[in-house]
């Protein structure tokens, strides 16, 4: 998905970070006094009207790579006479670092639900002008008041996903069912793990039937040790599961549901690409669309969100990204996708069945992040 940021992206992101490093440190330093975290703004009323603060005919979108149908972006540009400037992130941490340090302005972002929660609580998302987003009426009832954004004031749900194992049938057969398969000696040098602390440490939690949404230091340390022991088998930690699986250098890849569909659309032998949500359980979640606080083109951003939520456009988007969009009018689209496999489908029932971790407070996140850094450093 989404999470398929390409290698291309990482360089861009990193270079941007490196280049802007000194500048943003400086900005951070200067701004630190005035940057008080806003009081809980979850109860904020939607703003009455919105304007574009900057009138340069642009819209700045910040998203995972391969997570939107590029034809829709072109169509939006044509219909609204604007230029969409696209930038990509490779994880929530990088996204938050970039939108909060001020080096680059963004309008529309696509945070995962728990990051949306953190951004909302810190007052970093604009309340949406509901009048500009009439298509909000297609938000299903169960998403109109999500825990991460009470009242759906700041976000509109985008798509839902599961995590699992992507594999090549011609190389490894069709009987992968367990997270244990990611520790199989047969896949030495052909195995990819997601470069994501929660996903990768989470795998070991699922294997041991531990709650992957809870922060238990003993469990996290054990998960770290198991992943360090797994390293000789691993070819790369990467969120570019699409790029890696299409290169042929990987046979088995820890990855995300819709990316399986996208891989099928990119390889010559789509029938060989499979995906499984392991029997031990896995993560599922919702991604959202939101507008960054102080966005220079708020009005256009709201039009963009409205455009993406138009049922016809949502349908066209699902057909490209391979993730079901949370839109009452498109619930039946995914099963009809040519080539998509049943295992890649995600329904709101999966959100109840699988693990949707709560938003972790920073001190708990640090325990996870530290363990993951130790895996990578070793």
């Amino acid at each position, binding site marked *: 998905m989404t999470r398929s940021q390409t290698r291309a992206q990482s360089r861009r992101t990193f270079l941007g970070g490196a280049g802007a490093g000194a500048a943003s440190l400086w900005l951070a330093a200067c701004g630190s006094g005035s940057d008080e975290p806003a009081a809980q703004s979850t109860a904020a009323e939607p703003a009455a009207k919105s304007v574009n603060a900057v009138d340069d005919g642009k819209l700045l979108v910040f998203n995972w790579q391969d997570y939107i149908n590029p034809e829709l972006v072109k169509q939006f540009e044509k219909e609204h006479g604007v230029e969409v400037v696209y930038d990509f992130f490779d994880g929530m941490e990088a996204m*938050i670092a970039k939108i909060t340090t001020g080096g680059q302005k963004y309008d529309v972002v696509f945070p995962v639900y728990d990051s949306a929660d953190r951004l909302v609580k810190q007052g970093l998302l604009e309340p949406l002008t509901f009048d500009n987003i009439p298509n909000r009426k297609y938000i299903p009832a169960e998403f109109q008041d999500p825990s991460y954004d009470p009242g759906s004031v700041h976000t509109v749900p985008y798509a839902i996903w599961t995590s699992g194992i992507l594999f090549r049938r011609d190389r490894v057969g069709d009987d992968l069912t367990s997270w244990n398969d990611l520790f199989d000696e047969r896949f030495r*040098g052909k195995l990819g793990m997601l470069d994501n602390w929660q996903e990768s440490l989470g795998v070991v939690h699922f294997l041991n039937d531990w709650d992957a949404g809870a922060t238990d230091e003993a469990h996290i340390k054990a998960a770290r040790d198991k992943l360090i022991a797994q390293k000789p088998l691993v070819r790369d930690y990467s969120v570019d599961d699409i790029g890696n699986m299409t290169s042929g250098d990987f046979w088995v890849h820890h990855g995300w549901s819709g990316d399986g569909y996208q891989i099928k659309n990119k390889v010559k032998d789509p029938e060989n690409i499979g995906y499984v949500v392991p029997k031990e359980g896995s993560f599922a979640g919702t991604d959202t669309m939101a507008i960054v606080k102080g966005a220079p083109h708020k009005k256009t951003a709201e039009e963009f969100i409205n455009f993406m939520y138009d049922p016809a456009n949502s349908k066209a988007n699902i057909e490209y990204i391979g993730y079901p969009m949370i839109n009452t009018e498109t619930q039946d689209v995914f099963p009809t996708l040519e080539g998509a496999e049943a295992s890649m489908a995600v329904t709101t029932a999966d959100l109840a069945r699988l693990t949707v971790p709560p938003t972790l407070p920073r001190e708990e996140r640090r325990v996870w992040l530290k363990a993951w850094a130790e895996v990578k450093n070793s």
Partner: protein
Amino acid sequence: MRRQRFWGLFLLPGGIWLLVFFLLPMAVVFGVSVGTVDELGRPLEVFGVPPIVGAHWENWERVLDDDTILRPILRSFAYAGASTLLSLAIAYPVAYTIARYGGRWKALLLILVILPFWVNYLVRTYAWLVLLGDDGFVNGALDLAGLGPYQLTNRGLAVVMGLTYSFLPFMILPIYASIDRIDPRLIEAGKDLYGTAAATFRHVTLPLTQQGILAGCVLNFLPGFGDFITADLLGGPGVFMIGNVIQLQFLGEGEWPYGAVLTFMLIPLLMVVMVWYLRSSARAARQVGRA
């Protein structure tokens, strides 16, 4: 007296540049290193109030307990060192050939050396991935010879090759300059004195190009040591360099203070290399002066 003041003015632009783009940012980095972050990892209290009293030295204390950064530091030394040597081995013959036998093609050949830099780094790296992949051209060629396939990407070897490739021109150019500067009569003299080609090279050419070699090595080693892009793009799970560790503090974890501390930790390490270089080039300058 007046005259000296005039020349002193020449230092002004460079001095201002260093102040604005080096010293001030370093001061900010230091401020971040003794600060704290908020719930989202944004730096707060950058300078503490007042600066030292109330500063969060625990960020600095953490580095002493953190034995997980040792491996990345050693890897950085190993990869940067290996790529510098490899680069030298490739660059010297190239520079020598261009300088001594380039003739009227010299300018063109030098342009060819830097030509790859006109192509986006990413595109070039992707080309590497295609060339070195399990089904890539290199393994295809090895297969014809009945060898392989070998996993060439996503490992330390690939990082060393990538670093070598990235910084090779910075080895070729200074060596080229030093060879080009040699008075050819000195080499002729070496041969006239019955020196073999090897002896002439060892006693005449090599000492005279020592400064170019040293400059090239420094220009390869220092940026290679701090590099993280190459390990990120070409590397695998076991190639994390110290640059990657630092980068992750900023963009991966919201641990800016610790990232800033690590940045400072590297300075003395790299200063050792720099001081060694400056001293040896000063010594060489004295020798030339005496000769």
